């Protein structure tokens, strides 16, 4: 009886897909409101981000970048969801979610400064509604509930979206954030990018739940499992969740099934210790870039020349961004002290004076 109930519940969370691995549309009714130009732009962004990921890994190895969490494989999940947002929407990213904030308008050179550990990498430009990548897994979820409630109270026509991984869905803050947003009917979108591993721990070791999407039931909010390698499905699901939020119907949980081709981070992780090459091969067949490329090529909307152009532009812009990061003035302790408070308390005023004197020598 009990297990029957569980099966019934899990039956509600079947994976949502629009385009299959061959780039064929398998769910015509769900095809989103995207023009040919939109689809080309999505392809451009995914190719650009793949190149950026490759360059970032290499720049990290050269010591020209610091902390970096690879994103190859997650382009559809990251960029398809961001593409469904309006400019006024808030993004509250986790540590891997740098592409979303960059495509929302955060300058690439500042993303590189974030990687290196420079405070200017956290100085979000005025009017851009994003936060710096969150390192404490789960903290972004409860904060998003607050941002979304704020947007609702200020009667803004916008939503807050946040991202975590499959491991993050085991945190208390994940449940609290979803539950708070549900209780306040706040316009939030919670995206769990299930890339199969939390460092070395496989997703099925995090929970007995068959899907992460079904965890939405605990908060009494809709949940949906999406093919995270299918940019059309991710876009469409995010768009639906956004519309629900704007209509005052509250938050949604989206689980995107995806994969990271690279290591967890560039800080010494070795995926061959926990992942088989068979598994890598299997997921490479589902590559979100290959899929959309096939679809677009079939419609004569994409070509090798076009792709090469994107690659060249990406490489040039990345080079320029690294140069701009290099040219950023070094941090001083006095800068760090000044950023602590609006009105500095006496002990920090003393220390500011002390360091300014040292720095003037």
């Amino acid at each position: 009886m009990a297990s029957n109930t569980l099966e019934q519940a899990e039956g509600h969370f079947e994976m949502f897909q629009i385009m299959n691995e061959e780039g064929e549309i398998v769910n015509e009714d769900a095809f989103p409101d995207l023009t040919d130009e939109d689809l080309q732009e999505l392809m451009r962004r995914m190719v650009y981000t793949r190149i950026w990921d490759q360059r970032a890994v290499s720049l990290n190895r050269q010591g020209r970048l610091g902390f970096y969490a690879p994103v190859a494989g997650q382009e559809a999940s990251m960029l398809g969801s961001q593409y469904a947002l309006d400019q006024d929407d808030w993004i509250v990213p986790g540590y891997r979610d740098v592409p979303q904030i960059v495509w929302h308008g955060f300058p690439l050179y500042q993303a590189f400064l974030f990687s290196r550990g420079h405070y200017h990498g956290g100085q979000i430009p005025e009017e851009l509604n994003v936060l710096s990548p969150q390192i404490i897994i789960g903290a972004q979820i409860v904060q998003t509930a607050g941002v979304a409630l704020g947007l609702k109270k200020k009667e803004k026509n916008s939503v807050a979206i946040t991202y975590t991984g499959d491991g993050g869905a085991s945190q208390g803050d994940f449940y609290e954030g979803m539950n708070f947003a549900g209780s306040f009917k706040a316009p939030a979108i919670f995206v769990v990018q299930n890339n199969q591993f939390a460092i070395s721990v496989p997703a099925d070791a995090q929970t007995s739940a068959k899907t992460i999407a079904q965890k939405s039931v605990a908060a009494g909010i809709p949940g949906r499992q999406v093919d995270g390698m299918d940019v059309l499905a991710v876009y469409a699901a995010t768009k639906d969740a956004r519309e629900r939020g704007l209509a005052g119907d509250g938050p949604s949980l989206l689980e995107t099934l995806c994969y990271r081709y690279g290591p967890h981070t560039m800080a010494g992780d070795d995926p061959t210790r926990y992942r088989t090459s068979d598994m890598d091969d299997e997921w490479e067949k589902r590559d979100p870039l290959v899929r959309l490329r096939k679809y677009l090529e079939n419609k004569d909307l994409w070509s090798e020349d076009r792709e090469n152009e994107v690659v060249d532009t990406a490489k040039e812009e990345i080079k320029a961004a690294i140069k701009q990061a290099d040219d950023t003035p070094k941090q001083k302790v006095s800068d760090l002290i000044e950023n602590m408070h609006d009105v500095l308390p006496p002990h920090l005023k003393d220390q500011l004076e002390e360091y300014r004197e040292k720095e003037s020598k």
Partner: protein
Amino acid sequence: MAQMTMIQAITDAMRTELKNDENVLVFGEDVGQYGGVFRATEGLQSEFGEDRVFDTPLAESGISGLSIGLSLTGFRPVMEIQFFGFVFETMDGISGQMSRLRYRSGGQYNAPVTVRSPFGGGVKTPELHADSLEGLMAQSPGLRVVIPSSPYDAKGLLISSIRDNDPVVFLEHMKLYRSFREEVPEEEYTVDLDKAAVKREGKDVTIVTYGAMVHTSLKAAEQLAEEGIEAEIVDLRTVSPIDVDTIIESVKKTNRAVVVQEAQKQAGIANHVVAEINEHAILHLEAPVLRVTAPDTVFPFAAAEDIWLPDYTNVVEKAKTVVNF
């Protein structure tokens, strides 16, 4: 002017700021229609509406996450943690997140959050209600920690805390909520953060203290006066950062000091006060600076509070030791 208890002064401060600034929001567990477990928010929801004063689900981490998110969208949150022993549920939200928001964004964002929370022994609460955990907060850069000891200070300090553009942890001693009344102006006024107050002038020994121990120390001072020792009582009011200038000025006058706190010896902020005195006034000292604290055990079972909490006789004893050193 009106005679108010500390809890009435606190309610009055919130009412003042809810009136002054439409971005002020008051929320927490049972703070809405119920008016708070200590009646601190009594009447506020009916006066300002459910949009401004509201209940939350029972989850402290969620409450501080809510505060940060609301800050980012232009609000000025006044959140309540029902008892400060529950802060462990939200150490990340307070010490890991809101304290760092201005710094991590290079000044682009800030969290003008006031975290109100009751604490303190002497009222026989169950486990983890009364613990003095201000020391944990005091070690988090980016936070101010305020502990009033009187109705007048409570109102002025709370208004200052709410208006501060950075997070302030505002700790309210449960024993002081209704223990006495004081003249409190009905109009708005502020008491400066980061400033201690001399609550009794004296020339023989400085007693640096805060919270309920201010009253314990004042009682000790009466006893000491009968024995010819005039103690000067410095009420820190803001325990992080501490007002070093006021402390040092007093120590330079009396040449002797005792630091009194309700927290355990290894906790609280007494060690910091002693270190500052050593650094800034060692040549003025006639005796070592001693501490009156609770013992280094877990906060006592209710029936053992009387033998565990520091009382005025402990203060008298330590003051005499430094005077007769």
